[in-house]
């Protein structure tokens, strides 16, 4: 073994890697927010919509869950321009992550929604809550609480999966690491540090979501 590790040259560029890590965090949270919105609408349509709409949502969920994220990304970035929809690398990356997370989260939220007993909804009607109030307060809130762990771990998978968007050179941690390794020729050192950053983000996210659960569902329950 003659290789000498040289982390110094990588640490000189550490601030650029931190920027990359921050971009990954931003991308993940943006995809989480938009993907959850997609999921809540789709789960609603999947459980209460007319039959053709239910089938459409089911087709969307199955199509996404049975194809790789990377291929979804390529379809959006390379194939859609041929149909007149052109997105830049960052836009395509975000779109792919939202569509991907949306499908998984639809399935998770649906499972939660279907676990709510009908009696709860009838009780809501008896209290003269509006349809929207019933859906948000009686169905969605407890449903999300029930499937919260699954949602949180799917989100961590989304953040880790976001590293493949570097394949179309969207701006995030892996893409910046790729650039750095090609300028410093220190591939192993760069990727070790990037990997540790991903690990730190994943651990931080898990902690954040555990805290959020406590804040929303445990402490806020009495009110």
């Amino acid at each position, binding site marked *: 073994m003659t290789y000498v590790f040289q982390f110094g040259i990588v640490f000189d560029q550490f601030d650029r890697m931190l920027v990359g890590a921050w971009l990954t965090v931003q991308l993940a949270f943006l995809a989480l927010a938009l993907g959850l919105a997609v999921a809540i609408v789709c789960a609603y349509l999947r459980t209460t919509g007319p039959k053709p709409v239910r089938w459409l949502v089911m087709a969307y969920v199955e*199509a996404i869950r049975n194809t790789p994220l990377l291929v979804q990304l390529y379809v959006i970035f390379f194939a859609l321009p041929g149909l007149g929809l052109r997105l830049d690398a960052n836009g395509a990356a975000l779109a792919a992550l939202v569509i991907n997370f949306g499908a998984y989260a639809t399935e998770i939220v649906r499972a939660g929604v279907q676990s709510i007993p009908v009696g709860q909804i009838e009780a809501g009607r008896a209290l003269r809550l509006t349809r929207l109030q019933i859906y948000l307060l009686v169905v969605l809130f407890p449903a999300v609480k029930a499937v919260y762990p699954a949602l949180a771990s799917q989100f961590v998978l989304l953040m880790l999966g976001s590293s493949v968007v570097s394949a179309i050179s969207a701006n995030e941690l892996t893409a910046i690491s790729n650039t750095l390794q090609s300028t410093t020729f220190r591939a192993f050192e760069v990727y070790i540090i990037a990997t540790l950053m991903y690990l730190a983000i*994943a651990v931080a996210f898990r902690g954040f979501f555990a805290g959020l659960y406590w804040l929303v569902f445990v402490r806020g329950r009495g009110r």
Partner: protein
Amino acid sequence: MRSFGTNEFLFVLAAARWTVVLALIAFSLGGAFGAIVAILRISPFAPVRLLAAGYVQLFQGTPLLMQLFLVYYGLGLFGLRLDAWTAVVIAYSAYAGAFLGDIWRGCLQAVSREQWEAAHSMSLTYLQTLWLVILPQAARIAIPPTVGFLVQLVKATAVASIIGFVELTRAGQLMSNATFQPTIVYPIVAALYFCLCWPLSLWAQKLETRFRVGNAIGAGI
């Protein structure tokens, strides 16, 4: 200019076998590895448990792409000349080992405590208990999520295209570059993945319902 015709389609289709082969190899090696990890995770010795848990956390907390890069560039540094195949097989087996290890640990722990105690009272050794009492019961619960993971593994092999391993996705890229018709090529690639994964997904779902029914009856008695 070349256009996307039958030959190009057959090229992409033929490359799908490398996706299948990689998934199967990673599943077998990762399965062997995962079995060890799962058993270590429930071992009575805390340091062993911790070590196995650390391994799982490490692989579940970092992107697969980074694991691939590290194996690809990393082992090269130690004087081992790695071709894409070796690197990809090592990385995917380690990845599958971590996930299967975690899935199977859950299944082993789902077997009730009383089973351990009953086996102990019949003076079976630890290994006898594990092999004769716990594993057969855990295996039954483990089948549906294991098939589900196989779907995840097939999809995960697409990432290997990034380091130049020629499988379904990479073949699609090559044909897209040759024909300049990504609008046709990539949806076909996606459809081929769907044809591989969907039957597995349906199978996993079916197994899950069947085993759930079996458990409910068992609990009724």
